[in-house]
């Protein structure tokens, strides 16, 4: 065990820091923030991602031959830490980087890797995920969207739901039913679908935060070339499990931890600046207990991720440990936002853009957004089943 960094790792960090100084707008994080409008914000995030790529900071631990940097998972972790430190914006193509790319890298053909990976890394192509359906949520294997082979094409019909960023996406990876007569896990295939194909329509869904990050996506006789299948026909469940392991895994958690740490730092600063009843919030012992608990939990999110990175680097396979990571960060982050409103006291309900709100009303939006954490990427109940059955060996 050694948390010291090698000369190469220290150099990597320094190069990134130097690059960030010039790359971020003047006053970033203090006086300059992301656009408020949802679409503008999405485009801002996309532009940021493309800027990272232009600087050589995309696909950190992906192979050089597909446009990545060829660095280690440790450098990937350093990258996340430095993004947090600089309060860097999030990206838009998170699903492309974390899910589509990793799945294609693991199970795709050489042609698929050459075709798709460079454009994911450069964020020239944004991806969305077509897994959930109205009647296939936690019971994902019961998806009904049909893909019927006709010559060198699949014809896809059906509906997906909760497709985040579909409105910005050029590509979608989807779990579809190719054999309705086989047992439900054995009749699925994993397709890569061009979102510009005729027959695809999307309808925004409004979330409790008021935002419309996700959508319903409809497929009506959509043609997909057979070469866009990942893995074999009817072997899609196995491929999807890889995707889910990455969706719940340490890379994802570390990316999210960046944002949680930033917001926690902001909350601590807010508590230090806010006076109630003649005293500063930060001097209230109850407030301090609550803040400290979140400080510990946000740090543990990072340590969990780094510890799991080390397991993978030391040759262990990705497995149900991803569910531990996801279950931990989702509840810890939800607790943090609940706590944020707790400590703000009477002004807790005031949201953006009310001038009397704390810290521009940012915590209220985050609080509402946090309700999704324990539901998406597999609900907490599903994660607990996975941990209990596959890690602890309890009977199904």
């Amino acid at each position, binding site marked *: *065990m050694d948390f*010291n960094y090698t000369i190469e790792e220290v150099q990597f960090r320094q190069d990134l820091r130097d690059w960030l100084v010039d790359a971020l707008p003047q006053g970033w994080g203090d006086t300059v923030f992301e656009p408020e409008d949802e679409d503008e914000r999405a485009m801002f995030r996309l532009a940021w991602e493309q800027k990272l790529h232009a600087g050589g900071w995309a696909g950190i631990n992906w192979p050089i031959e597909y446009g990545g940097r060829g660095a280690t998972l440790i450098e990937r972790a350093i990258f996340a830490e430095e993004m947090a430190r600089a309060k860097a914006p999030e990206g838009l193509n998170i699903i492309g980087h974390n899910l589509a790319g990793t799945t294609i890298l693991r199970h795709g053909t050489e042609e698929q890797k050459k075709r798709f990976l460079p454009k994911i890394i450069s964020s020239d192509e944004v991806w969305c995920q077509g897994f959930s359906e109205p009647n296939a949520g936690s019971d994902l294997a019961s998806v009904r969207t049909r893909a019927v082979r006709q010559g060198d094409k699949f014809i896809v019909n059906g509906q997906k739901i909760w497709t985040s960023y579909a409105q910005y996406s050029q590509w979608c990876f989807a779990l579809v039913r190719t054999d309705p007569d086989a047992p439900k896990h054995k009749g699925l295939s994993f397709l890569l679908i061009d979102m510009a194909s005729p027959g695809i329509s999307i309808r925004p869904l409004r979330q409790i935060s008021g935002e419309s990050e996700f959508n319903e996506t409809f497929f009506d006789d959509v043609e997909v070339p057979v070469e866009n299948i990942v893995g074999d026909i009817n072997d899609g469940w196995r491929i999807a499990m890889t995707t889910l392991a990455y969706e719940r895994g340490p890379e994802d958690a570390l990316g999210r931890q960046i944002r949680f740490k930033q917001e926690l730092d902001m909350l601590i600063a807010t508590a230090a600046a806010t006076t109630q009843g003649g005293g500063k919030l930060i001097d209230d012992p109850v407030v301090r207990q609550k803040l400290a608990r979140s400080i510990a939990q946000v740090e*543990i999110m*990072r340590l969990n991720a780094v510890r799991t990175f080390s*397991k993978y680097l030391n040759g262990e396979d990705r497995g149900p440990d991803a569910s531990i990571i996801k279950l931990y960060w989702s509840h810890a982050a939800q607790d943090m936002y609940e706590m944020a409103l707790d400590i703000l006291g009477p002004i807790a309900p005031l949201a953006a853009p009310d001038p009397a709100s704390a810290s521009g009303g940012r915590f209220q939006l985050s609080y509402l957004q946090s309700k999704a954490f324990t539901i998406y990427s597999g609900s907490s*109940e599903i994660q607990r089943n996975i941990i*209990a059955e596959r890690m*602890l060996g309890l009977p199904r």
Partner: protein
Amino acid sequence: MNFAFNEEQKSLGETLGQALGDFPELTSPDPADGRSREVWGALSELGLFSLLVPELDGGVGLSLVDVALAIEALGSGLAPPIVASTLIATDILAVYGTEEQRTRWLPAIAEGEMKFAIAVLEAGQGYDPDEVQTAIAGGAVTGSKILVGDADQADAFLVLARGDGRPCLVVVAHDAPGVALRPHADLDPSSGFFELVLDGAAVTGDALIAPGAPAAAIERLIDVAATVYAGMQIGIAARMLDTTVEYVKTRVQFGQPIGAFQAIKHRCADMAVAIEAGRSAAYYAFWAVAEDAFDRSRAASMAKAYCGESARDVCNQAIQLHGGMGFTWELTLHRFLRRAKVLEHGFGNHVWHYERVMATSLATQMPSIAPQAALVD
């Protein structure tokens, strides 16, 4: 960077777990039977007490990271507290002892011939070392320390006292005049808790630890002890989860093992998450104290606070999931609950440590990374 233990470190943990397993009385129903004196000899034969002693002083010169899994095993095996307290004292003497002090104590510790108990707490005071009232004056120390584990077996006590108006650590020999013990009645009789009554107990000037920088030695004592306790707490929690998982796989109600019910499964999963998160915190703390990292105190306090809460939650769940058997004397779950509870209140409970996390976080603009100087070749 690598956040994993090597084969030697894992093997040491397993060896220690097996060695403690040879003493079933440690985990027998009656806590009073858990005060086995033979355990010390067995662990000493394995060389445990030489591991943290520097090579120059006749030891093996390993670090706290090397023994982290061994300490977890001390927790899960309900090892007598004198084992952990001697290891903690070894670290303090190795780091802060003068050459004369090291020569006097460390070779004897390495040989397993010297046992240290640690006397920090006092009735009427909180966990904060600055509140200490026991005082050193004119070569004698006077005051009363409570909850000194295995005090009757100790050859010497590492005592927190006030000298020259400021808190410091001093070594008091068990057989010094003016030293008396009163057994406590307490939640965990297997911990052998005593009140240490010092009535003008003789101390020589060279028994003071780091007289030039007593606060630094106390700070390290708290950090090392908090980390060691966090490790033992996680050991207890992990054992409780294993025990519970085995039970719910075999206990049949409503025609099936109760472990097939989601109400049971989900609790077990939450226990597993708490343990893994606790390990992340505790293992990092072991590294931070071993390396004297910039965030040493914060890491130790995070670990103690988080693992303390996790261990108690897991023990509570374990008892609940064992149903009526869970609160019987015979099943011995109470032994682990009792030990977890006294560890939780040793060297600062979670409230005290969370406050310390807050204070250390505010005192330094914490970088999210180790400093640039942390280069290795």
